[in-house]
């Protein structure tokens, strides 16, 4: 038995999903510990054996189910399984909060199975099966959290995505004659190629949560159980990126070329939507009060970066996008986990209800700080490297309108990522949270590992970029020039380690100054007054509420447009239903007879006219 064959990994994982359920029936905590073991096993198997070239395919079990190890699949799989493994450490601490405890463990593992299947196949049908499998197993994780409302929305959007994917698959099959991924992508041509391009984009958008299919992302991440949010943002969302690579990079749509920038129109439209996604994500993130929702919108806008980069499609853009996938996956996982750690103690993620947690949870604070620095694209974290590469690509391609979006998002992220930091961890401490302790060791451990990785990706990106370069070559683009310590873009070369070193020195100096010349005084929440009146109630005069009120007012009117659109679509569907009900199902026998007569008449009339 080869434990490093893909079939074996999938089988074992699937079986242990059932096992986790059975054990979870006896003892919920034990069941959730199974999730840790399984996801650790999968992570080690994928990363260790995968990059040693020992991950193999042993047999072909079923006619349409075939597996294949590709560089890109391996890259995505390592990223996502790693996130799954890290998050799984949180499961035992949260399991008591769920309604169906054993089921949670099972579905958690099933989602992992689904996602692995997607990354390790060369067959579209297999890909779709696992894609859908992921959808329904992750779908039932959502309602175990705060609210069940967003589940249906998630399902609807996901299904739009997966059916777009399915349609594209069949379109490709009609030209290539098989479900083979490489053949399908290579052989599709003409109008069908354009359609496939569009449909695959829709699929990618739905999964990435890009405009206009973004609505599920904040709602689901707001509602889902806290560890699951990390999985969604750091793991499941990346399915969209995977599909996007397939569609946006490997397909050549045929519409017409925009001469000025030498770019296909369809491609430009997608890039444009990507930049809109960035802008909307940023604007929406700015006005959130719930930290999870804020991060969700930030995930959305980061998805936009990936889309923009992939549409440009040259070597540096693709590796920027892929590096961004990795950087964002670990950064957002870390951020969500940090918030989950807080929420486990306080039972809220609303910024207006929290404050001063740094005194209780300093490590969590540090993890969160590192994560958001990466998300904002500031050195020395991984997010900086990827954003730098994407900027290089956008500027070089000369896309002014899209560049506006990209830069806006970058600046905007400064505006929002530091808000939860300030609101949750800094500021005045709430009396009721005074006695909270730092999270237990097994929760802190994955967060520390994640932050270590964030820093590593920022300081020494070259090993991973080397792996990404292999993918880039696979995709037919030119590899990015990298040396041991440098990356060369279109207009310059950076030394991440050097930058990081300088940055580190700067921070150190600042810290010294802060310590030596400390002038502030620590006060309790009640130690204040307004307009000469002392405050007697313990209500929080929280400074992070309405932080950017003037800015928000600018676009306040427009923020619900998409929600309204979807609501009206839903209402329209229901209206059509009511219409049919009213005219066909009236409890009167003559109605059916009437329709029979009408239809026969019309058809016969038609026959006689023709």
């Amino acid at each position, binding site marked *: 038995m080869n434990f490093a064959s893909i079939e074996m990994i999938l089988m074992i994982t699937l079986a242990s999903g059932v096992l986790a359920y059975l054990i979870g029936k006896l003892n919920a905590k034990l069941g959730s510990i199974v999730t840790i073991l399984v996801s650790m096993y999968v992570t080690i198997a994928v990363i260790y054996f995968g990059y040693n070239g020992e991950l193999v395919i042993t047999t072909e079990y079923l006619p349409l189910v075939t597996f294949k190890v590709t560089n890109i699949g391996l890259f995505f799989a390592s990223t996502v399984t790693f996130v799954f493994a890290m998050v799984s450490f949180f499961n035992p601490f949260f399991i008591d909060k769920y309604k*169906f405890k054993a089921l949670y463990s099972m579905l958690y593992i099933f989602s992992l199975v689904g996602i692995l299947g997607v990354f390790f196949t060369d067959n579209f049908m297999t890909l779709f099966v696992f894609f859908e499998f992921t959808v*329904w197993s992750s779908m039932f994780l959502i309602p175990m959290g705060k609210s069940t409302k967003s589940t249906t929305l998630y399902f609807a959007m996901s299904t739009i995505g997966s059916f777009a994917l399915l349609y594209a698959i069949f379109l490709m099959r009609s030209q290539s004659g098989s479900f083979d991924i490489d053949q399908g992508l290579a052989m599709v041509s003409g109008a069908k190629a354009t359609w496939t391009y569009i449909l695959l984009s829709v699929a990618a958008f739905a999964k990435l949560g890009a405009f206009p299919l973004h609505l599920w992302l904040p709602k689901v991440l707001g509602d889902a159980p806290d560890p699951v949010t990390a999985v969604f943002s750091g793991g499941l969302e990346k399915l969209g990126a995977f599909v996007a690579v397939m569609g946006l990079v490997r397909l050549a749509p045929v519409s017409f070329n925009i001469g000025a920038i030498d770019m296909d129109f369809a491609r430009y439209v997608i890039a444009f939507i990507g930049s809109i996604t960035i802008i909307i994500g940023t604007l929406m993130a700015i006005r959130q009060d719930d930290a999870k929702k804020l991060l969700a919108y930030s995930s959305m806008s980061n998805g936009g970066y990936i889309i923009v980069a992939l549409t440009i499609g040259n070597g540096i853009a693709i590796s920027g996008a892929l590096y961004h996938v990795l950087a964002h996956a670990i950064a957002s996982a870390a951020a969500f986990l940090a918030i989950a750690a807080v929420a486990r103690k306080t039972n809220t993620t609303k910024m207006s209800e929290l404050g001063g947690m740094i005194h209780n949870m300093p490590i969590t604070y540090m993890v969160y700080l590192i994560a958001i620095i990466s998300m904002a694209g500031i050195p020395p974290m991984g997010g900086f490297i990827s954003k730098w590469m994407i900027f290089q690509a956008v500027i070089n391609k000369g896309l002014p309108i899209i560049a506006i979006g990209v830069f806006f998002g970058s600046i905007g992220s400064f505006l929002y990522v530091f808000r939860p930091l300030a609101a949750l961890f800094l500021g005045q401490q709430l009396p009721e949270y005074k006695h909270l302790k730092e999270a237990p060791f097994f929760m802190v451990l994955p967060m520390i590992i994640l932050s270590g990785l964030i820093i590593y990706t920022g300081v020494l990106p070259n090993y991973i970029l080397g792996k990404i370069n292999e993918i880039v070559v696979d995709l037919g683009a030119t590899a990015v020039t990298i040396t041991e310590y440098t990356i060369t873009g279109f207009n310059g070369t950076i030394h991440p380690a050097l930058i990081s070193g300088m940055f580190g020195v700067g921070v150190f100096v600042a810290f010294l100054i802060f310590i030596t010349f400390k002038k502030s005084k620590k006060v309790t929440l009640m130690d204040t007054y307004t307009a000469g009146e002392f405050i007697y109630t313990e209500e929080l005069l929280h400074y992070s509420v309405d932080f950017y009120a003037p800015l928000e007012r600018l676009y306040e009117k427009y923020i619900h447009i998409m929600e309204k659109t979807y609501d009206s679509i839903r209402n329209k569907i229901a209206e059509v239903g009511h219409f049919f*009900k009213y005219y066909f199902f009236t409890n*009167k026998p003559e109605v059916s*007879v009437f329709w029979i007569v009408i*239809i026969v008449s019309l058809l016969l009339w038609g026959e006689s006219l023709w």
Partner: protein
Amino acid sequence: MSAVLLIAVPLLAAFISILNKKLAPVLLLLVSLFNIVSIFFYSLGTITIGGFEAPYGISLVLDNYSLIGLIVINIAFFLVLLISYEKVKKVATVLLVALAGLNGLLLTGDLFNLFVFIEVSGIAAYLISTTNKKYVATFNYLVIGTVGSSFYLLGLIILYAMVGTLNMSDMALRISSEGISAANLSLPFLFMFIGLGVEAKLLPFNSWVKGILGNSNKLVGPMIASVYAGTISLVFGRILTSVFVVSDRLGLILTVILLVGIVAGETMAFASTKLREILLYSSIAQASLVIILFLEGITGWAVMMVIANVISKLVLFAIASYTSDELKTDEVDNLKGIFSKNKIIGVAFTIASLSVSGLPLFMGFVVKMNVLTSIFDGEDYLLAAVILLTSIVEGVYFVRVLIKLWYNKEDAKTINYNFVIKYIVSVLAVLLIVFGTYTTVLNDQVETVNEVFEIGGNE
């Protein structure tokens, strides 16, 4: 042994059973069991009745197509009996007749005989539906059903006048050899299509469905929605594949009507708030889809879809009807959280509805994928798009229902589902998973079914 026993034995039992009321239900179970067991002993072929060869005598056709149908329908029938045994007692004789009628529908190779069996099973269905105690609804069913079968008969007679035979395969033969144009055939075919369409719940001939299934108890729901619907779909399939010669124009128009039916069914289910109504509208959509597949010539997978529907609708309607029998309500909002108290039932319902909406691991998915493959092979991109779009709507309302029934309420009512229904629905749910993962069985069956029609039909 001859497959005519599948019809004769229930009839004999029906005639005997009126003598003793207490014995009737036992007899019913025994006969139903006998049917299931005996199916496996009959040899394939055409069975003549009265010793007269087709087309002069009536002949029954036992080929792979009808065999699959017989197995599925008889087993489903038996399971429905077990689920609703206390309701069965009063109408045991009627159910025996219904069983004979359903088997007759599946077996017969004669168009007029088909009409007789439509009436036999139809009248039995009216009577079964009276156990709902909604007489106006039953009356509607009766009126529309009678008009429908009259139209079928009218079409059949016109066809007889033109062709001079009633046997299905002979009819197909004569139509092609005499070279009767599709335009001339469109009138009788249209009538017959509508007649069968009434029974098969096709929009817009189906206003009876709401009254019957919307108020269904645990006998009527699974019986009409699963067993009857499956049978009629298969009958439709046989006629469409082996008798009808539909002109392109008529075929297009019928497809459009059926597509409207799918859209209407799914949107109506989307707009409904009652559990049974959601299910019944969704089954309207499914019925239309199956007929489209038969029209398009995707016979094998259409049969599989019928089977998948029989299984999943049986589970869904059994649970929905049982629940509303117990709680006297089927508003989804009033049923919140019931599955968290009745996990087995809930899991079975979940699996069945996920299968219907076509999610992987379950039978519905395999069927849907293969159906789509065939549709794309036929380059029917619009049809595929409509099917996929409506599937989204379908999935959404099923998920909505599932989430509501699993979550949301702490003080959910506990319902004592008896162990019979628990076992049956869980076995069926497991079956859906087995067929959904071990697809070789399905592929083999599809091939045998397709062979039936490729080799010139049912000789």
